[in-house]
């Protein structure tokens, strides 16, 4: 069964705006990860947040994790056209076995 569910399914914003994507999951986790996929390609790891962390930053990315609500959010600040891609959250419940959600399609328009 799908562990993570992203919201929204699709998001369209203007360049320079911030983009926020949310992920909900069902069971306890060791960590939660976010990945990016450009059209028709493999996924690229963006950021990992452990279950004992609440917030993490990497460049223009900010991830939060609320284990009490079993949810996470990914914020991309000052979006660029090159950020256009699909974004997936993935949960690791044990041993690195990753379960992915359905993804958010982000379109950043000039």
């Amino acid at each position: 069964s799908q562990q993570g569910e992203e919201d929204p399914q699709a998001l369209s914003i203007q360049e320079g705006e911030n983009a926020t994507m949310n992920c909900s999951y069902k069971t306890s986790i060791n960590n939660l990860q976010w990945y990016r996929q450009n059209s028709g390609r493999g996924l690229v790891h963006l950021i990992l947040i452990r279950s004992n962390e609440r917030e993490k930053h990497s460049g223009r990315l900010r991830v939060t994790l609320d284990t009490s609500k079993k949810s996470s959010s990914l914020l991309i600040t000052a979006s660029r056209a090159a950020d256009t891609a699909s974004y997936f959250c993935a949960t690791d419940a044990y041993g690195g076995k990753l379960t992915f959600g359905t993804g958010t399609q982000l379109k950043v328009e000039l």
Partner: protein
Amino acid sequence: DVKVTQSSRYLVKRTGEKVFLECVQDMDHENMFWYRQDPGLGLRLIYFSYDVKMKEKGDIPEGYSVSREKKERFSLILESASTNQTSMYLCASSLWDSLANTEAFFGQGTRLTVV
């Protein structure tokens, strides 16, 4: 840099054929995965391997089998291909890490069409 290589980018097979998808990683990772990706369904785990000859079923193992005879290689086998197995197949690998640092590295994917 970690490299995960899938043997084919595009593959066309006939219904009933036995199909082999190969994946090789070069970073001595314990974990390897096969996912399939379909529009609107995200990535669904077919099989997971955490060591040589060790495997675990994912969410959709029916119609598939896997082989991991060497640590670096993980093969996905479609015993008798059917049209509903037309999909994008993604292989990934990761380190098993007790500190939960389990970032996965993905291959470029194999787009399989069964006709």
